[in-house]
């Protein structure tokens, strides 16, 4: 298990390397001059040129990449041009919020996906199946940012039931221990902070989760349908086991594997979707940092945030592969 995880993690290293090189090159050929951007508008051309050579921008691209890689290896990912703070700090400040949102959304998506998949499977052969199936197709057509806007409108504006900006009520003190707000609230033992943080998390997490649930519904249903053709299900039925027991103890175990693969891919995509939801809910995470950086052409931040998303996706893939081996005995013996 550990060996497989380690091997998977090793294959991620070259990918990460290539991605960092591509990001670096892509962002350096932009028609944006980081030197001119980091100077006051009154700077003369000579001053900008001096800044360029100080920043190493006049050297060959590959040499620049080497310098960046060397600094990155020492934990220095550069300074934000706009906010004048170390990029690593900015990312570390916002990453927990995004992870919190993504994990909450994934929980919503999994619960809805598994529940929906089982419900759709229970309807097999009935007349309602066609309607339910078409409903999943229609639900698949609502991307996360439309859910987010819809929820703001219904729960925030019409019902005024839930807050829809930020992570916490402005009047409450923000505990800052790990950056994971829910965890911090528990650590300091403040029920009101925990409650407020949860209320702020409900809408974005539901919007994001709802958008990613329909594919899970479909894959679970179709792999359940596949599994029920197998002999061991008939065998279990002949042994007189109840339908519920067959489903839980026999069918679901096997049908869960394709679903797990999909959920791994979905979780990675979900981080991308969280960007929009963060923007819509003014949620102070990685996505808002990224969008602000794009608007200000703040290259060091774009580069670092892009890399962070990439690391997240690769980490999730590695974990899912490991989990797959744990859950699938066929792969374990090799």
């Amino acid at each position, binding site marked *: 298990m550990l060996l497989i995880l380690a091997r998977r993690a090793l294959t991620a290293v070259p990918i990460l390397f290539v991605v960092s090189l591509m990001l670096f090159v892509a962002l350096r050929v932009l028609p944006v001059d980081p030197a001119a951007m980091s100077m006051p508008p009154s700077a003369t051309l000579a001053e900008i040129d001096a800044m360029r050579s100080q920043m190493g921008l006049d050297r060959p691209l590959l040499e620049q990449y080497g310098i960046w890689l060397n600094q990155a290896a020492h934990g220095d990912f550069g300074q934000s041009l706009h906010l004048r703070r170390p990029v690593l700090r900015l990312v570390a400040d916002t990453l927990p919020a995004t992870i919190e949102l993504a994990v909450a959304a994934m929980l919503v998506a999994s619960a809805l996906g598994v529940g929906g998949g089982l419900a759709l499977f229970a309807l097999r052969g009935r007349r309602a199946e066609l309607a339910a199936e*078409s409903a999943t197709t229609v639900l698949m057509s609502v991307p996360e940012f439309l859910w987010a806007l819809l929820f703001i409108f219904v729960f925030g504006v019409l019902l005024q039931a839930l807050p829809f900006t930020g992570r916490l009520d402005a009047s409450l003190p923000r505990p800052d221990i790990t950056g994971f707000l829910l965890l911090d609230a528990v650590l300091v033992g403040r029920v009101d902070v925990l409650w407020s943080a949860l209320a702020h998390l409900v809408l974005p997490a539901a919007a994001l989760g709802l958008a990613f649930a329909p594919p899970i519904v479909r894959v679970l249903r179709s792999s359940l349908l596949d599994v029920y053709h197998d002999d061991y299900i008939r065998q279990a039925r002949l042994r007189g086991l109840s339908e519920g027991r067959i489903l839980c103890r026999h069918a679901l175990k096997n049908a869960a594997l394709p679903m797990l693969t999909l959920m791994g891919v979905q979780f990675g995509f979900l981080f991308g979707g969280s960007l929009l939801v963060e923007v819509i809910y003014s949620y102070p995470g990685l996505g808002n940092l990224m969008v602000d950086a*794009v608007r200000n052409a703040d290259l060091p931040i774009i580069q670092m945030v892009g890399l962070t998303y*990439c690391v997240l996706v690769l980490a999730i893939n590695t974990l899912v592969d490991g989990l797959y081996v744990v859950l699938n005995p066929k792969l374990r013996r090799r």
Partner: protein
Amino acid sequence: MRPLRSGRVIAGAVIVAAVLMCALLAPHLAPHDPDDQNLIAQLLPPAWQVGGDADYPLGTDGLGRCVLSRLLFGARVAMEVALIASLGAALVGSLLAYVAGYLGGWADWLIGRAVDVWMSFPPVILSLILMTGLGTGVRNVIFAIVLVDWTRFCRVLRSEVIVVARRDYVSAARLSGFGHWRTVTREVVPATVPLLVTLLSLEMGIAVVVEAVLSFVGLGARADQVAWGQMIADGRQAIYQAPWALFAPVLAIFVTVAGFNLLGDGLRRTLDVRMVEGRE
């Protein structure tokens, strides 16, 4: 034709055709110029509500522009991006898939690693980074979608091509003296067309969403072009006073994407091909 008897295919095709007509005929259908500002009639509700004006069937936005006209003109950008970008992505992705699946060996390895690198980015992030570099504008949106989404075609088609290329009739074609080019174009490609058509239809829906997302963040269509994503961003500012100005483009995107998804889903069922599930 079996697909034509499927309810989903018909429903999807009707919706897509209707949106396409709206886009093509926008200058004739729209009651106003989409950029005309009527500053006396800001934030009007739809015509059927109290205070509505029959002149503005879906009301006006914060600058007094006709929501219906903007909606119709927005369909042009959406359909342009959907059709061209998905065809481009299909072209690039399927070409690489045929090369990788048919030739195998180092070509397959190289293309497979490229897909790995691409897949390690969430698509939204990748297109955002690309748009930073390319700058705004519909043409760049199309370019970015092609550069991001070719992997969707390549991944799924490649495994199909591998299966097809091992079939007996492909070997028979090779044995009877067909060259590689002729074998691929005459024997392999026709067998994968159903899958390609299905993927194409689903990709068009994705392209509509991506365009809306990019325009919403301000990185899509230029400010002088009317796009649904921009209308959403504008409508969000006035969510309390004029919710319909936000609702109209949201509904338009939903209906269009649902049309493409129904069409793709129906085609997938009727053409009976294996399909990998997944979305952005």
